[in-house]
C-alpha cells in the first residue's frame, strides 16, 4: 500500500519542531507499524538523511517504551493496542498518517517523537510502593487475599506506564496512571498500612510535576492500551477525600480490609 507520512521532527528540547512529509510507496499489510518506520529509516539513512527518532523496545506491548500520537490518537486507531503491536492492515492504501510525540508540559520532547517521561517515575517515588524490607515478609500464604480483590489489583497493575493517558487528556493529567497504582496497592491487604498517606503523597507529586487536573473527560481510558478503567480514578478520589478529611488516616492505623 502507498502511504504518506507527516512526521514531527524536532532536533532537541529547545529547537523548534515541524512536520515533514515522507512517501512510503510500498508498505506491506503484515508489517507492524514500527517495522514500517524501520524501513523508512533505513531508506533515510541510505539517502544520507537523519532517521526519525522514536522509542520502542519489547515490541510486544508490555514494556511501555513506545508511544506516539498517530492521526490524533495515542498509539493509533486500534483500541487497546500499543503502537508496537499495531499492524499496517489497520490502514488503507492512500492513507495520510500524522505522527506526533506525546504532548504535555510534564513530558518535554527530547528529539522527534521521543519525550522525557521521568515525571511518572517521580510519582511512583512519592509513594507507589509498599515499604517492606527484603526478607522480612511472612509466608506468602499467611495472608489470604480474596480472589476478586487480587483480580482487581491485577487489572490496575496492568498499566505499562507508557503515558498515553496523559497524551490523550485535554488537561494532560496523569490521573489514570496515578490511580492505577493507588488501586493496585489499595486493593491488597499488604497495601493498607500506607494507603491514605500514599494517595496524598502521589497526588501532590503529580500536581508538582505539572500534570493537569482531572475533569472526568474519559479520554485516558479510551486511549489506554491496557484498558485500565476510569473506575480507579473514582476510587482514588474516594481515598483522597478520606485521607484529606482525616478519617482515612485513622483507618490507616487500623490497617483494615480493602473496602
Amino acid at each position: 500500500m502507498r502511504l504518506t507520512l507527516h512526521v514531527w521532527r524536532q532536533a532537541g528540547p529547545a529547537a523548534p519542531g515541524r512536520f515533514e512529509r515522507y512517501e512510503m510507496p510500498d508498505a506491506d499489510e503484515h508489517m507492524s507499524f514500527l517495522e514500517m518506520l524501520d524501513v523508512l529509516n533505513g531508506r533515510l539513512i541510505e539517502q544520507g538523511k537523519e532517521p526519525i527518532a522514536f522509542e520502542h523496545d519489547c515490541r510486544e506491548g508490555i514494556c511501555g517504551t513506545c508511544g506516539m500520537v498517530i492521526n490524533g490518537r495515542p498509539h493509533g486507531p486500534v483500541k487497546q493496542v500499543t503502537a508496537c503491536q499495531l499492524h499496517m492492515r489497520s490502514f488503507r492504501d492512500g492513507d495520510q498518517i500524522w505522527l506526533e510525540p506525546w504532548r504535555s508540559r510534564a513530558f518535554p520532547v527530547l528529539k522527534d517523537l521521543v519525550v522525557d517521561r521521568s515525571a511518572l517515575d517521580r510519582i511512583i517515588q512519592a509513594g507507589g510502593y509498599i515499604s517492606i524490607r527484603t526478607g522480612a515478609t511472612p509466608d506468602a500464604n499467611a495472608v489470604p487475599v480474596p480472589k476478586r480483590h487480587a483480580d482487581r489489583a491485577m487489572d490496575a497493575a496492568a498499566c505499562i506506564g507508557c503515558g498515553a493517558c496523559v497524551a490523550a487528556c485535554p488537561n494532560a493529567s496523569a490521573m489514570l496512571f496515578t490511580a492505577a497504582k493507588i488501586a493496585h496497592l489499595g486493593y491488597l491487604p499488604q497495601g493498607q498500612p500506607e494507603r491514605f498517606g500514599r494517595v496524598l503523597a502521589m497526588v501532590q507529586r503529580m500536581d508538582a510535576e505539572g500534570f493537569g487536573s482531572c475533569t472526568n473527560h474519559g479520554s485516558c481510558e479510551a486511549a489506554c492500551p491496557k484498558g485500565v478503567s476510569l473506575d480507579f480514578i473514582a476510587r482514588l478520589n474516594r481515598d483522597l477525600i478520606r485521607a484529606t478529611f482525616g478519617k482515612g488516616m485513622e483507618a490507616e492505623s487500623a490497617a483494615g480490609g480493602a473496602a
Partner: protein
Amino acid sequence: MELHSRVPDGPIEQKWDKARFDLKLINPSNKRKFEIIVVGSGLAGASAAATLGELGYRVKCFTYHDSPRRAHSISAQGGINASKNYQNDGDSVFRLFYDTVKGGDFRAREANVYRLAQVSANIIDQCVGQGVPFAREYGGLLANRSFGGAQVSRTFYARGQTGQQLLLGAYQALERQIALGAVTMYPRTEMLDVIVVNGQARGIVVRDLVTGAIGSHFGHAVALCTGGYANVFFLSTNAKACNVTATWRAYKRGAAFANPCFTQIHPTCIPQAGAYQSKLTLMSESLRNDGRIWVPARAGDSRPANDIPEAERDYYLERFYPSYGNLAPRDVSSRRAKEMVDGGHGVGAEKNGVYLDFRDSLQRLGKPVIAERYGNLFDMYKQITGEDPYTVPMRIYPAPHYTMGGLWVDYNLMSTIPGLYVLGEANFSDHGANRLGASALMQGLADGYFVLPYTIGDYLASTRFASVAADVPEAQTAEREAADRTKRLLAVNGKRTVDTFHRELGRVLWHECGMGRTEAGLKRALVEIPRIREEYWRDVRVPGNAADLNQELEKAGRVADFLEFGELMCLDALDRNESCGGHFREESQTADGEAKRDDERYAHVSAWEYTGPTSAPRLHKEPLVFEYVKLATRSYK
C-alpha cells in the same frame, strides 16, 4: 587465569548456611562508606540495587532505558517457580534442584542450583509482601500451575504478565530507595566499559544517551545485571535493545565468558512473516498445558488446518514422548519442530510453522475458561497474525529466547575480575545447557534479593581499596577508547545500514549455530563472521553525530560487539563436540535423534579468556561434579 568456584564444603543442604556464616559482615554504620555500581535494572539489577540500598550501601544504578521499569524482564509471561509445595503434590527444595540440574542436561554447578531452589520460597514471600498480584484461588490462597517440563505445579503467575508484575515489584522497591536517597538512578545511560584498577573492578565508562557525553563512575564493586545475548541472532524474542556489550567489554577486560554456545531456542513463537520482520514474538509455553501440537501427517499437505481429519494429523510430541507429551522441555520440543518443518510438514503460507491447537480444550473446558487462562495471549496472537486462535490453530515455530551462557562466576557470583559481580541472565551459573520454564525470573530475583546482598559484603570487608578518581590512567584510557570507537563508527560513512549487517550475522548464526550445529557449519561461520565484521568497519553508515541522542550510533556499537561475540559463540560450539540441552551437535545423537552427551570429555564449564585482538581466546575448564544428581540420560518418554 584460574577458576576457583569457592563452593563451600559440607552437605549440599548446608552449604548456603555455612557460606552465610563464613562470609564477613560489615558494620551497619560502615556500609555507607562503600559505593556499589549496579548496571541494569531488570529483575536482577532492580532487586539488587534496592536491597543493597536498603542495607545501607551507596548505590548507583544504570540503565539505557528512560525508566528502570522498561527492562526486558517485563516481557516474561508464564511464571516463576518456587519450592513451596503449596499444592501438596510432592515438591520440595530437592526436587526443584533435581529438576533444574536434570533439565539443564547436567551442565550446571550443583551447589548454585541447590541454593537457587532454597531461596525460591523466599522470593514468593517477598513479592507477595510487595503487592505482586499473583493469581489466587477462591479461598484467597495462591494458585499454581504446572509449567514446561515439570510434573509438579510449582509455578506462580500473574495472568500472562508475571515478569511485568515481578519487575514492577522490584522497580517500586528501587524507586523507594531512590526517594530515600540510598540509590542514585542513571536512566538513558549506557555502559561502554569496565574500569579495572590494580586488578579490581572499580568503575564503569558510560555514555549519556541524550547528550552523548562519555564519562566515568567509580565505586568499590560493580554488578553487571545486563541480561542475555539472544539478539546476536537479530531475530529473537528479546527486546530490540538487549545486547552483549556490557558482558563483552567485561570479557575484554579479563572476565571469563562461560559456555557462550548455550542458547535456548524457545519452541512456541510466532513464525516469521516477512523479510522486514524486526523481532519474533513469544507465545507463553503455558499454552502447551492446554494446546496440542501437530503437523499434517503427509508432507506438503496444504489444506487449511480445520479440513485435515484427525487420522491425518501427527501429534508428534505425544507420539515421541508419551509421558510428557506436549510438555516436553524446550530444547526437545524445538528440535522436533525443526525436524517436522525440515521434513516438509510445515504449515502456514511460508511452510515455516507447526500447529498449536486448542480445539480439544475448548470443547472440554469451554471458551470462558480458555479465555481466562490465555485471553491476553490469544488477543496478542490475533493482533499480530490476523488469525483467531479460538477458531483456527495457532502457528508456532522456535525462536532464540534466552542464553544460558554468560560471564563465569564463582559461588558468590563474582567473575574472574575481583569486585566484578554478574547476576541474572548475564551470568552462566544455574541453568546448564537448557533453562526450564519459569526459572529465569526465579534466578534473577534470587541473585538480586538474596545472594549478592550477602556475598558482596565479604569482598568489601576483606579487600583493601586504593582511592580512585577521574584521573586514574585506567579510567582515562577506557574513556578514550570508548570515545575513539564512537568516532570510528561515525567516520566509516559507508553504504549499508547497521541493521543489514546485523541481519546478515543473524542469518549465519541461525543456520550454523542455531538448533542444529555441525563441525563443517561452524567452521563456515568462523570464516563468514570475520568477513562480515571486516565489511562492517569498511561499509557501515552511521548517520548523525556523537553529541546527540543518536539511536543508530547506539545500535552500531552494540552490533560491533555482536560481530565479535558471535565468533566466540561458534568457537565454543565447535569445541564442545557433544550434544547437551540447547546445544545440539548433529554428530552426537542417538539412533532416535536425541541429544547424546559425552560426560567423559565434556562434563565441564568452558570458560574463555580474552587474550588480545589478534590471538585466539584461551579455554579454561571448570570440572562439574555431580554428587547429588546422578548423571543420567534425560528421558521424557
